[in-house]
């Protein structure tokens, strides 16, 4: 991000809570989440004031140390207001941590301006396309029950829930700047399926689960709310993906009023029918190119039964090493990468679990601190009421200080924790993304399988053709029936050849997609994790300071006892 323009932005945002769009680039689309997370990340807390903050030139993406010299130069350290220092002094973290609940800022004087906005430098460090100010922001809201209009005899069809999906954007590909549609969950599933077909090899963020619950639960407030949140997260991730955000399917989903004009997966029966009709065409190539395209889509149920069978046969023979597959998964790099991804996933799972128990422990700490404080307040009250001697009242007063401090500390713990949750959520989110990676790799594997199947099919067809020719040439004058067969075979071979070439092209493309995506994922993950850690650590430090201040104050106030007893 460029230096100077940010001074103005920075200052103006000081006065308002206007969330900048880049915060949407978070993979964790939660609005307030990004607020805090980017707030945390605005602290380019290089503990060494000597790190020169260089505005424009370092692309934070590619130079690792540049992460720490993120060009947030005019970030003012709230030690006494908004100074325009490019040199960052070792901050008092307590000053910088923003607590919206903290009405009485205990920090001397200065207002915690520095962090009250989403200077989303975490997005800064991610994609260079965030240089321009295009944004797209999605909100999912107002779930409503609706009736399914059926023309069946049964009065009152099934009810379902729709959600309002509001988009605000200035991207040119979208016709307008503000629009909203109503969609139901089924539509989301359709969208996800269509995307999966069109963007093979890409790491497509996984959609929220279809829940296998009974309709009673479906309508419960809690469930609906959970789903709303999940949908919002999902859609925000989709638009955060640099390729998918431009997809037609997504545009249609977000913009087209009324019924979602995307082909849904048809029911199995009609697909079977379809399949039965198409089968001969597939085998004997009457519909030429069209079927080639179909062929290179991954095999699915219904119409692709035959193909599934063939590919299964192929994969079995691959596994058993019976026939050497003509196209080998040769890319050692790919296999290594896959292995690494798997390891990474395991560790993310582990870390995510530990993060959860850390959060719980922090929560417990806050609770007990509060209860202790309350117990002492009761004791204080009791002493004051029942006091016989004045010294009792004096003690009671001191005890009250202790008690209120404990309660204050408890409040800080709770704040600390709610922010910790937001930071460490990154780990949870990446679990989902690892699944997307798996999906992308699976796309590649299945494409490869298709290619292999076609190749072996081709070779067997050619084999048959040869045999027929050989046999027919032995017959004097040609064997009419055999010649006819040979003709037909040659047709099939041609179609299969076309399909094979298409499949190979697809495979290559998917490979390319894979590679791009994994690169992108690695980059973004690096940035996200660094942000997460930074946010987490700054948060911890800030609150540790605050809590320490509380206790220090009490210790001072009661220091007389220490002197007395020594």
């Amino acid at each position: 991000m460029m230096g100077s323009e940010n001074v103005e932005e920075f200052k103006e945002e000081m006065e308002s809570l206007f969330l900048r769009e880049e915060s949407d680039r978070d993979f964790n689309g939660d609005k307030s989440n990004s607020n805090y997370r980017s707030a945390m990340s605005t602290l380019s807390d290089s503990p060494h004031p000597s790190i020169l903050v260089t505005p424009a030139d370092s692309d934070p993406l590619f130079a690792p140390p540049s992460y720490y010299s993120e060009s947030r130069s005019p970030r003012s350290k709230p030690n006494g207001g908004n100074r325009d220092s490019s040199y960052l002094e070792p901050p008092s973290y307590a000053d910088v941590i923003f607590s919206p609940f903290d009405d009485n800022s205990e920090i001397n004087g200065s207002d915690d301006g520095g962090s009250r906005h989403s200077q989303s430098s975490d997005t800064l460090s991610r994609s260079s396309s965030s240089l321009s100010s295009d944004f797209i922001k999605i909100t999912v809201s107002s779930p409503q029950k609706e009736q399914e209009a059926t023309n069946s005899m049964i009065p009152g069809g099934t009810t379902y829930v729709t959600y309002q999906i509001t988009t605000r954007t200035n991207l040119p590909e979208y016709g307008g700047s503000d629009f909203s549609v109503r969609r139901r969950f089924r539509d989301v599933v359709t969208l996800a399926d269509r995307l999966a077909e069109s963007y093979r090899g890409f790491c497509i963020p996984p959609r929220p689960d279809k829940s296998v619950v009974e309709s009673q639960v479906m309508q419960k407030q809690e469930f609906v709310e959970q789903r709303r949140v999940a949908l919002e997260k999902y859609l925000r991730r989709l638009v955060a993906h640099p390729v998918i955000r431009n997809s037609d399917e997504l545009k249609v989903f977000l913009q087209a009023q009324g019924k979602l004009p995307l082909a849904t997966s048809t029911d199995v029966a009609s697909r079977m029918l379809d399949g039965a009709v198409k089968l001969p065409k597939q085998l004997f190539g009457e519909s030429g190119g069209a079927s080639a395209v179909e062929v290179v889509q991954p095999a699915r149920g219904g119409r692709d039964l035959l193909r599934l069978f063939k590919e299964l046969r192929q994969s079995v023979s691959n596994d058993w090493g019976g026939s050497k597959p003509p196209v080998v998964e040769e890319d050692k790099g790919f296999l290594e990468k896959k292995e690494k991804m798997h390891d990474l996933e395991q560790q993310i799972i582990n870390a995510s679990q530990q993060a959860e128990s850390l959060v719980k422990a922090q929560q417990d700490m806050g609770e007990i601190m509060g209860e202790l404080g309350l117990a002492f307040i009761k004791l204080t009250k009791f002493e004051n009421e029942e006091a016989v001697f004045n010294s009792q009242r004096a003690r009671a007063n001191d005890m009250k200080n202790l008690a209120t401090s404990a309660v204050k500390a408890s409040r800080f713990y709770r704040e600390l924790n709610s922010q910790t949750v937001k930071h460490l959520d990154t780990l949870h989110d990446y679990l989902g993304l690892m699944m997307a990676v798996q999906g992308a790799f699976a796309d590649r594997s299945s494409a490869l399988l298709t290619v292999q199947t076609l190749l072996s099919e081709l070779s067997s067809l050619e084999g048959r053709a040869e045999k027929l020719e050989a046999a027919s040439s032995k017959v004097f004058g040609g064997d009419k029936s055999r010649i006819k067969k040979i003709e037909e075979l040659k047709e099939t071979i041609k179609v299969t050849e076309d399909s094979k070439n298409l499949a190979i092209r697809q495979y290559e493309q998917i490979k390319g997609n894979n590679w791009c995506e994994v690169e992108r994922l690695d980059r973004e993950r690096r940035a996200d994790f660094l942000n997460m850690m930074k946010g987490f650590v700054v948060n911890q430090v800030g609150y540790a300071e605050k809590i320490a201040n509380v206790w220090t104050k009490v210790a001072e106030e009661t220091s007389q006892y220490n002197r007395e007893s020594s």
Partner: protein
Amino acid sequence: MESTEQPRSISGSMQSPRSPSSQPYLSVSVTDPVKLGNGVQAYISYRVITKTNLPEYQGPEKIVIRRYSDFVWLRDRLFEKYKGIFIPPLPEKSAVEKFRFSAEFIEMRRAALDIFVNRIALHPELRQSEDLRTFLQADEETMDRFRFQETGIFKKPADFMQMFRDVQSKVSDAVLGKEKPVEETTAAYEKLKHYIFELENHLAEAQKHAYRLVKRHRELGQSLLDFGKAVKLLGACEGEPTGKAFSDLGTKSELLSIKLQKEAQQVLMNFEEPLKDYVRYVQSIKATIAERGTAFKQHCELAETTKLKEINLDKLMLTRSDKVGEAEIEYREKARKLRENLRG
């Protein structure tokens, strides 16, 4: 108290130049817990070191070995002899078997025992107790003997008699429908009593919370440790700079965890334990209050019996019976007891 003259000890022991030679002092410490014995009969022994210049004591320094039940003996003796005085409390017997020998429990107990003895040594009246001297100086065998006397399974005959008398008076009350004053009391005394009882509740609650605070500290420490480890493993999967960052984060988490455990220990020893100590102290006060009540009751009974004996005597005198002498003796004895009791 012999404050001005420095007693010249026959054994010629020297006063250390540091000690305030004109001031009498008695300082005790309880140290070095050691596990002795085997299996079920295992127990912890403590070293009790006495430093003093009081003449009643054998020399400026004495070291003996004592165990928990010896402390209990001392407390019981003091409780009996010094009625009306608040006896410092002892740490509890351990309820849970396997906890009995944990390092933490032993240390907590040792600290509490140390405070116990020192409070006695500083108390103007209690410090003069002969039982204290026995406790601090007698050799181990003597101590054992004393202890067995007290903790015998069968109660002393005197206790039995008291129990009979209690029952007797209760029955006669019921039969005669007499209303007995429960305790001698004033408004101020009642207020204090109420205060003490309530105080115990509040202190106990505070102590409970304090203990849970200690536990939570430990749990937080543990989860930070686990988190640190997990994060380090994650870092191993990642390249730079993420990998290093994770690794650093993990290391720091582990360090923090250690600090938290230390803090937990401090909170335990410096906050929770003293709270527990005060709870016990209040309980000990309550015990003394109860004793006051019992004493008062006994006093009333004695007064009654004395009265009866007096009546009897007068009767006998009138009839000029031989029994007069006997009765008179009895009467005098009762009266004496009454006066004694009144004083206590």
